[in-house]
């Protein structure tokens, strides 16, 4: 008799996700399906629009990380016009983006991932949330998290014009610069962000690394997959969020390929399954071998941990120290244990804060030379940035007036669709066995498998307390409920 466990709806996702777990006759997991029910059609309806509107239209793909789409679109539009953005323009965009990263990574760590570690995966449900974290580690931390969010959004608004859906990046640069007064304010906030990042890393060291049970959990097999890793790197092969080449390393940590954004389609292809609206990207030259890891499977991962695995290090000094500390603790590159992604995310938080201060203290940041007027005929262009949740690729073709004729998008979280599916499958298979009583903490352990990826359909949840609620109905082959389990459902 086949049993079926349906997790539907998974709330606190952007849109709606659904997980189906099928058990075999013995009660072991036969298979799992992670389905995405959404399709809005941006690749079709952006056709016919002026290319300078793409940073405004594609913002609306995601209101949680519109900054990432705004930047990738602006870079693709720069490429369409073959225009080189002046140094100040590039720095302003990267400054906005660094501030955004600080906000985004902070809220994920404290509100989503932190509770699993600070409170423990099997802590009482009512305590395993941001409020529990605050009660345990002190009220002032809650205030700091809110402060970090505010500062990040303040910088986004100063440079981007708006807090949500920024509007100032155009082909060739930006519509505005910043004043010296604003510069000073941004610098003060950036310095505070560096201290906040250090504080967060120390909290992680005390709470997680100081607890053998957590270290064992991180290093254990349940949350481990040996895949390829992707990330954007600068000319020194250091992590960069805004610009550079895409580097991919193999499961052995060696460079597999390093490609320029314009060549992405030679290296990335997307597999289609009929049971979901989302595609599964993979490395074209390795090939799609199904939901499996290892060097013969083209499945790759694009997350904070992937970026650190794919790079030789961090471009700022303090983040480099923390980077070295992590790899020394976990046994060198690459790290395959998915739960270490949380640690990598905090190292990126520190890098973003350091980069923020580097950029805002550059003497040219207040220069009025933030826009170069395009002079060449628009044709085709690719823009790539690292979204917090993975490498984000925008590719546009236009006619000679700069009107879009074709669009291709490979969005951050999409990169990780196959690895997330595999992680859910592995966690479920490892945790649910013949005779297992499916308990709430056990369900949370399944959740932890994909929470590490910070999937974008969940990124909207960043600043609020709580856990992802699951409702699991175990059905017999006739569809009759055998057992209903709930967590966080009244």
């Amino acid at each position, binding site marked *: 008799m086949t049993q079926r466990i349906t997790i539907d709806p998974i*709330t*606190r*996702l952007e849109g709606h996700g659904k997980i*189906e777990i*099928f058990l075999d006759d013995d009660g072991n997991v036969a*298979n799992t*399906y992670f*389905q995405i029910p*959404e*399709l*809005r*059609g941006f*690749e*079709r*309806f*952006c056709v*016919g*629009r*002026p290319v300078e*509107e793409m940073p405004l239209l594609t*913002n*609306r*793909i*995601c209101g*949680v990380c*519109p900054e990432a789409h705004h930047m990738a679109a602006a870079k693709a539009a720069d490429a369409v016009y073959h225009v080189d953005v002046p140094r100040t323009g590039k720095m302003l965009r990267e400054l906005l983006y660094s501030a955004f990263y600080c906000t985004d990574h902070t809220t994920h760590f404290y509100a989503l991932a932190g509770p699993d570690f600070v409170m423990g995966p099997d802590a009482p449900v009512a305590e395993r949330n941001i409020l529990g974290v605050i009660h345990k580690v002190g009220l002032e931390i809650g205030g700091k998290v809110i402060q970090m969010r505010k500062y990040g*959004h303040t910088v986004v608004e100063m440079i981007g*014009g*708006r*807090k*949500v*859906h920024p*509007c*100032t990046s*155009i082909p060739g640069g930006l*519509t*505005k610069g910043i004043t010296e007064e604003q510069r000073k304010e941004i610098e003060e906030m950036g310095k505070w962000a560096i201290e906040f990042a250090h504080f967060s890393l120390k909290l992680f060291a005390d709470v997680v690394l100081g607890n053998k049970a957590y270290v064992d959990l991180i290093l254990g097999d349940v949350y481990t997959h040996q895949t390829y890793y992707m990330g954007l790197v600068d000319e020194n092969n250091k992590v960069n969020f805004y610009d550079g080449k895409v580097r991919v390393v193999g499961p052995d940590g060696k460079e597999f390929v390093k490609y320029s954004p314009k060549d*992405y*389609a030679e290296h990335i*292809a*997307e597999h*289609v399954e*009929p*049971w*979901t*609206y989302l595609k599964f*990207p993979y490395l074209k030259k390795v090939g*799609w071998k199904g939901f499996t890891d290892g060097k013969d499977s083209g499945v790759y991962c694009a997350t904070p941990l992937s970026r650190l695995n794919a790079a030789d290090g961090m471009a700022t000094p303090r983040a480099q120290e923390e980077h070295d500390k992590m790899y020394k603790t976990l046994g060198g590159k690459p790290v395959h244990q998915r739960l270490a992604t949380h640690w990598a995310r905090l190292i990126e938080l520190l890098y973003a804060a350091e980069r923020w201060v580097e950029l805002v203290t550059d003497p040219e940041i207040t220069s009025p030379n933030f*826009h170069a*007027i395009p002079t060449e005929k628009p044709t085709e262009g690719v823009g790539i940035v690292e979204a917090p949740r993975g490498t984000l690729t925008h590719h546009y073709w236009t006619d000679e007036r700069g*009107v879009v004729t074709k669009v*291709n998008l490979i969005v951050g979280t999409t990169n990780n669709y196959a690895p997330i599916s595999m992680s859910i499958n592995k966690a479920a298979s490892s945790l649910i066995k013949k005779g297992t009583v499916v308990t709430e903490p056990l369900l949370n352990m399944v959740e932890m498998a994909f929470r590490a990826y910070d999937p974008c359909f969940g990124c*909207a949840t960043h600043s*609020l307390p*709580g*856990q992802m*609620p699951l*409702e699991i109905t175990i059905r017999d082959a006739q569809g009759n409920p055998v057992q209903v389990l709930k967590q*966080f*459902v009244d």
Partner: protein
Amino acid sequence: MSKPKFAMYWAASCGGCEIAVLNIHEKILDVDANFDVVFWPVAMDAKYKDVEAMEDGSILLTLFNGGIRNDENEHIAHLLRKKSKILVAFGSCACEGCIPGLANFSPINEIVETAFSTISTDNPQGIRPQTSYQMPEGEIHIPTLYPVLRTLDSVVDVDYYMPGCPPESHQIGAVIDLVVQVLQGKAELPPKGATIGAGNSTVCDECKRTRNVKTIKEFSRIQLMHADPELCLLEQGIPCNGVATRSGCDARCPTAGAQCIGCYGPAEGVIDYGARLVSAFASVIDANDPAEIDRILDGLVDPAGQFYRFNLAGSLLKAGKSAFQRSNV
């Protein structure tokens, strides 16, 4: 006495409305102090079936964002309508379709075809998503996409409209203040059907740029010039939509040097946004010769998008509404 109940839901949306609500910062505590939040998938963990179990009309206030793109969105719209005393179409998607409403220019099969035949898609067998699919272990399902994106009021009765993409946080704060005052008996609700959390004039009226009532000889593209930071963008030839767009955002985009793209929807009294904008643009064109006028208008490279960027699904055109009614999907 128990507190009145509050709900917020996202249908086909981007999550930006939720972020805008979070950006009211400490005012979120007013919501918590005055309401019992019973359903808000982004923030808390109640399920559809918890809503189904509530008495009809038991939720005082529901903020509904996102358009109606599939059968699941519509199902929840009906459910929340039944359970809510006050249902607010919150944000541009629910009010008028927003950017995802531009999909209504294309048949749904083209939208799916495009997504599953891009240059990076490896799909030699032409696989398309199936709403139900038989796997070896059993049948699995995903929602049915509708032929067009619909606004909230095209599927259920709506009490108020709160425009913006997303609504500005200070406007959200003001609406929360108002509702709290109503609860305390210190204010009255606006008449049903009213637009709330926005102004009654146009973005131009809020814009601090200098206007000289100057006419133009050609339209320009914002990237192809260094725009004057003080002067009206439309007078510089940049197709700025402020003149037809409802006020309420403090003219944020023009202030930052970018053209208004119309996210607050039609200004008060405007029946069709595109028609108003056509007439506004026509009035700044400095030409009487039809050939010359044609040449100037050619500078608007995407008239359909320019005039109906945010409000195609809710416009008089109701693009695709008849297609929807004809369709059996």
